[in-house]
C-alpha cells in the first residue's frame, strides 16, 4: 500500500549515476504531482470566480490552511514512524481554550508566554501519548483514539459549558492572526519557515533519518542500534506540542472558543498527510508534501464556499475531490513506475 518507487535494476545499465539522477527526478515529481493538482484546482476556481484570488481571500485561505499545515507537520513526524496521532484535534481544543482564557484574563501577558503555555499543554499530552505507545507497547491508533476521547472529556470538564469570546482578549491576541507582511499573513510565513526547517532536519540529521528507519522497519531499526522508543516518543511529543501551538492560533483566528474547538480535526489532518504523499504505514513522505496536502484540502473547502456551491453539495464534492487527489497521486506513481520499467527494458535491449 505504500506508494514507493522501486525502479527495476537495469541490466547492463550504463552507470549507476545516471539512473540515480533519474530516480531523483522522479522523487521530486512526487511532490510536484500534488503541487500540480493544487495549481490546476486554483486555476479552475479562479477561472470561474476571479475573486477567489483576491488578496483578502488568499489571506483567509492561507491562515486557515496554516493551522492544518502545522498539525500536518507534527502528524507527519508520527506517521513516518509507522504510528498515528488521532488526539491532535482534542489537544488543539483544550490548548485553544486554556490559552484563550489566559489571553482574556491576564491582559498584561506577552504573547510568547501564551504560546509557551499552549506549547507546554500540547507537549504534556504528546509525551503521555508517546510514553504509552513506546513503553506500554500499545498500538498508537488505540492509544490516541482513547486519548482523543479522554482529552476531549477533560476539556469539557475544564470548560464547563462556558466559552471565551473575542471581546475579552487583549487586542494583540486577535490581531496577530490578521497581520500580514507584503500581503502574506505573518502566520503563513512563520509556518512555511517551520515546515522548511522540518523538511531540512528530516533530510540532513541522523535522528531525522532514524525516524524514517523506525517507520520503514521497526525490527531492523532496533537491530541497527537505533533507540526506537526515544525516536517515537520524540515524534509524539513534537506532534503534541505543535497541536498545542495550533490551539493558540485557532483561538486567535476564530475568537470564540468553547469545548468543541478542533472536533474531528484529526481525520482532516490525517487526510492532508496522506494526500501529501506520506505513506500511512510509515517510512516515507515529507513534511512539505503534507503541508501542501493541507493547503490543498483547505483550498478545496474555501473554493466551494467562494463558488457558492450549494451547501447541500459541498461536502460530497469535498469528499469526492479528496478521493480523487489520493487516487490521482497513486495513478501518476504507478504510471511512472511502469514507464521507468519499460524505459529500462528498451535501454537494456
Amino acid at each position, binding site marked *: *500500500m505504500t506508494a514507493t518507487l522501486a525502479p527495476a535494476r537495469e541490466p547492463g545499465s550504463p552507470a549507476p549515476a545516471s539512473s540515480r539522477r533519474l530516480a531523483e527526478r522522479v522523487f521530486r515529481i512526487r511532490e510536484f504531482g500534488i503541487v500540480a493538482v493544487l495549481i490546476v484546482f486554483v486555476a479552475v476556481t479562479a477561472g470561474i470566480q476571479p475573486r477567489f484570488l483576491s488578496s483578502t481571500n488568499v489571506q483567509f485561505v492561507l491562515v486557515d490552511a496554516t493551522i492544518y499545515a502545522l498539525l500536518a507537520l507534527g502528524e507527519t513526524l508520527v506517521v513516518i514512524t509507522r504510528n498515528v496521532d488521532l488526539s491532535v484535534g482534542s489537544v488543539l481544543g483544550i490548548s485553544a481554550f486554556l490559552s484563550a482564557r489566559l489571553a482574556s484574563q491576564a491582559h498584561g501577558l506577552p504573547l510568547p508566554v501564551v504560546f509557551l503555555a499552549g506549547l507546554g499543554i500540547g507537549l504534556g499530552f504528546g509525551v503521555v501519548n508517546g510514553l504509552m505507545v513506546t513503553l506500554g507497547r500499545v498500538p498508537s491508533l488505540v492509544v490516541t483514539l482513547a*486519548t482523543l476521547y479522554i482529552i476531549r472529556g477533560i476539556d469539557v470538564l475544564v470548560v464547563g459549558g462556558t466559552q471565551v469570546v473575542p471581546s475579552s482578549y487583549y487586542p494583540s491576541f486577535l490581531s496577530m492572526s490578521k497581520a500580514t507582511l507584503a500581503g502574506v499573513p505573518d502566520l503563513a510565513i512563520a509556518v512555511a519557515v517551520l515546515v522548511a526547517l522540518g523538511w531540512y532536519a528530516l533530510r540532513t540529521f541522523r535522528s531525522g533519518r532514524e525516524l524514517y528507519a523506525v517507520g520503514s522497519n521497526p525490527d531492523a531499526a532496533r537491530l541497527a542500534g537505533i533507540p526506537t522508543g526515544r525516536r517515537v516518543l520524540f515524534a509524539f511529543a513534537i506532534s503534541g506540542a505543535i497541536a498545542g501551538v495550533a490551539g493558540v492560533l485557532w483561538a486567535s483566528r476564530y475568537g470564540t472558543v468553547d469545548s468543541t474547538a478542533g472536533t474531528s480535526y484529526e481525520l482532516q489532518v490525517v487526510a492532508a498527510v496522506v494526500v501529501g504523499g506520506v505513506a500511512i504505514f510509515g517510512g516515507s513522505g515529507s513534511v512539505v508534501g503534507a503541508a501542501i496536502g493541507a493547503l490543498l484540502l483547505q483550498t478545496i473547502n474555501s473554493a466551494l464556499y467562494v463558488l457558492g456551491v450549494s451547501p447541500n*453539495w459541498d461536502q460530497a464534492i469535498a469528499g469526492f475531490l479528496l478521493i480523487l487527489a489520493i487516487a490521482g497521486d497513486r495513478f501518476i506513481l504507478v504510471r511512472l513506475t511502469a514507464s521507468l520499467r519499460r524505459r529500462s527494458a528498451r535501454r537494456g535491449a
Partner: protein
Amino acid sequence: MEPDDVRRRPRPALGRAALARPFLRWETGLVVVVIVVAIAGSALSPEFFTANNLFNLGLNTGEVAIMALPMTLIIITGEIDLSVESTLGMSSALLGVLWADHWPMPAIFVVIAVVGAAAGAVNGLLVTRAGLPSLAVTIGTLALYRGIALILLGPRTVASFPAAYTNAGTTAIPHTDLPYSIGIFIVAAVIFGVVLHATPFGRSIYAMGDNAEAAMFSGLRVKRVKTSLFVISGLASALAGVLFTFRLNTAVQDNGTGLSLDVVAIVLLAGVSIFGGKGSIAGVFLAVLAFAGLQNALLLTNFNQEAMGLVTGGLLLVSVFVPNAAMFVRQLRRAVTRSAPRPGEPALSTPRKDT
C-alpha cells in the same frame, strides 16, 4: 523420506497454542469488565437491572453493535472502514426521500440494500484495485457519503413513517425483552462467529491480515475477500441506517454522525489488533456489553455526561494496558535506571551516544 527419519524432538508441552492464549486472556478480562460494570451499575442505580432500562440500553446500542461485526472482520484483514456512519446516514436519507416520494416500503429496502452494497464496493475497489490505503479512502467516503445524504435530503426532516415499522424500531420482539436491532445483532454475531472462526473464508481473513503477500502466494483471493468485506460492511451500515431511522422516526441528513469511532473503539476494546490478524467475535460481543452497560450505568447516575469521553477512552486504555501493565512498569523502571550508569558493568556496553 522414510518414517524412521522422523526426529521430532520431545518438548515440554506448551498447553494450548501460544497464539490462542492472549485471546483467552483478553476475553477473560472482558468478562471481568462486564461483570464489574453490571455490579457497579446495579449498585449505583436500582433501576439498572429493570427490564425497561435494559431494553433501552439495547435499543441505543443495536446499530453500533451491528456495524461492529463487519468492522471486526475488516480490521482483522488489516484495513479499516471509517465511512460506516456516513453509509448509515445515506441509507437513512434514502429511506426518508423515497418514503416521502410514496415508494412502497419493500422497494425502498431493495434500493437501500443496493446502495449500501455499492457504497461498500466503492470503498473495497478503491482499496483493493486502486491500491489506496483504506484509512485515507474511507476518510474520503466518510465525507462523500454524508454529502450524498445531504444532497438527497437537504435540510428536510422526514418523519411520517408507518407505525408498523417505527414500532419495530422502538418495541421488543414479541415474547422477549429484546429490541429488534439486538435480536438481529445476536443472530448476525453467531453467523459472523462461525464464518470467521470455522470456515476457509474466515481463515483467509486472518491469513491476509497477518501477511497479505503470503496469503496471495497461497492462492487466497485477497482482493476479492477484502472487497466483499467492505460490501458486507456497507450492507450492515445500510441496515443500521434503516433501524436508526425507524427507532428515531426521523430521517435527517446528520443521522449517525460520530458513530464510526465508537464502532472502532468497540472493536479495539474487543481485543482485535489494529495491525490485523487477531481478534474474535466473542470478544466483540463482550465489548458491546461492556461499552453499552457502562454508558447506560453512567447515564443513570448523576455523572456529568459531557465527560463520557473520559470513561470511553479510559475503558479502552485500561483494557489494552492491563495485559501490558507489568511490562509497562518494567519498561518504565528500565528507562529511569538507564539514565544512571548501571553498576558493575564494563565501559564497553555504555549506551550509544545519540545524535
